[in-house]
């Protein structure tokens, strides 16, 4: 089975990730997921590609810590975080987060918390390729 937390070049399968999450406990009654994907428009400009750079070892370490904190904070039964580090185009998947809990409220809140925390704690950077040139993104709305 693939690790619950990882960075990878290739796309991920949401079905496989959810199956892996479900396999961790039969008490799971609610699963919340977040999928971040590439847009073709940002800050008023067309975006043809997005590429990522990461401090890989620290990113995985931070994502593992994030997962552990979410499990403890929200009483989750399990959680998974997968982030792609590659070049993507509009519509491509970038990040997958899943939170599994006994009930929906904890799962939904934990999922939102994990993506918000990932954006401010995990050393990953995105560069957008536009007709005006390439620009590193430094904001995270």
């Amino acid at each position, binding site marked *: 089975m693939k690790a619950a937390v990882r960075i990878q070049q290739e796309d991920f399968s949401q079905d496989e990730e959810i199956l892996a999450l479900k396999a961790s406990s039969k008490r799971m009654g609610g699963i919340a997921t977040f999928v971040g994907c590439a847009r073709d428009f940002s800050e008023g400009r067309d975006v043809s590609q997005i590429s990522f750079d990461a401090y890989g070892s620290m990113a995985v370490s931070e994502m593992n810590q994030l997962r552990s904190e979410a499990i403890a904070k929200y009483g989750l039964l399990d959680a998974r975080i997968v982030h792609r580090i590659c070049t993507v185009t509009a519509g491509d998947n970038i990040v997958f987060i899943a939170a599994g809990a006994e009930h929906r409220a904890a799962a939904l809140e934990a999922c939102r918390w994990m993506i918000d925390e990932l*954006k401010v704690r*995990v*050393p990953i950077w995105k560069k957008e390729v536009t007709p005006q040139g390439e620009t590193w993104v430094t904001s995270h709305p």
Partner: protein
Amino acid sequence: MINVLFFGPVVERTGTNSLQVAYQSGMTLQHLRDELAAQYPHAFEIVCFSAVNEHHVRDLSMPLLDDSEVTFMAKFSGG
């Protein structure tokens, strides 16, 4: 030696993704940051975070050990 790493937007401004700085007894993260900021002022305009051996460090007075891995990073934009 102190191994210094740069990523993403900082690399674009330093022109390199790694370099080595001679370790000096009593050296702190602040000393290293000041030394590199003097060499790469344009890059350090966007440096917001520091990490030592893959851990976030906010206290720049932290003493460094020889062979430490130090990273100066711009604001993150994953997800």
